[in-house]
């Protein structure tokens, strides 16, 4: 349950960006969360709500795009979706897989006034 730390880091970045753009109201913030990240989206929503309640950020929407886990075989070059966390190429069976997506934990954009 480290979603509270993540939510706090998120709020820090939001405040920094809002100050930089002279924004006074946050409507929504969009995140990209990879399937390999150890985040439970529902917990993060819950923590975000708790932290923002009673502040000027209250009511802002937290939008989360979940990114599937994808890899590329370093042996044959095949790109594929990694299922069940099996890092093995479905084409040649090679075990040397580079993770190309699914590790994200980032802010994409914010809607502010």
């Amino acid at each position, binding site marked *: 349950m480290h979603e509270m730390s993540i939510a706090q880091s998120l709020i820090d970045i939001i405040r920094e960006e809002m100050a930089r753009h002279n924004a006074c109201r946050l409507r929504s913030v969009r*995140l990209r969360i990879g399937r390999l990240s150890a985040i439970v989206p529902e917990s993060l929503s819950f923590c975000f709500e708790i932290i923002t309640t009673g502040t000027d950020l209250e009511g802002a929407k937290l939008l989360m795009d979940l990114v599937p886990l994808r890899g590329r075989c370093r042996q044959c070059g095949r790109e594929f979706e990694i299922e069940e966390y099996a890092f093995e190429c479905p084409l040649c069976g090679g075990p040397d897989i580079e993770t190309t997506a699914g590790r994200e934990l980032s802010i994409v954009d914010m809607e502010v006034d």
Partner: protein
Amino acid sequence: MKISVVKNILEANDRIARENRAIFDEKGLLVINLMSSPGAGKTSLLEKTIDALKDDVRIGVIEGDIQSSHDARRIAEKGIPVVQINTGGACHLDGNMIRDTFDEFDFDHLDLLVVENVGNLVCPAEFKVGEDFKAMILSVPEGDDKPAKYPLMFRESKVLLINKIDLAPYLDCSVAAMKKAALKVNPDLTVFEVSCKTGEGLDAWFDWIRQAAGTTDAG
């Protein structure tokens, strides 16, 4: 108005971890972030490792626990520098907590710093502390389904110690199956099969650590 941000949410922690790392590198210190579930044997492994290496490798330890200084006392009995961090509820250590311990150590007189993270198979994997690499322990009674259930930690670790292999005959789970499951998630893992109870397999781990800490030839 839409603002494009594109920023890693953990960037602030990553930055502190990089700063920590720079200090460790400058001091020529090997730093291992040791992770596992509660009770897998992190402190036991440390005790055995200290006993075996303390004449060759100068070791320091940071103990991370939600509460208590139980583990730090166990390590302090070995006569090496140790700092206990109580996270007060937080399920992992982060870069900042590690930085706060720096005044307690004399890094010029250490070769190896082991950060024993909070017992937890999920959260610590997400937070860098400035380590050279992550090492994890999976104990045999935990079962061979853990790599598939908690893939991030296995994926992030460089070393896996399968501990309590002496218990394998009494359980339905085989060490070979655990190793296979772990390598499926991360084929690059260096795996040691050990028992901190009987000492089986530990010599290979000790040799590996000696080499990693760069003390094999230097003496």
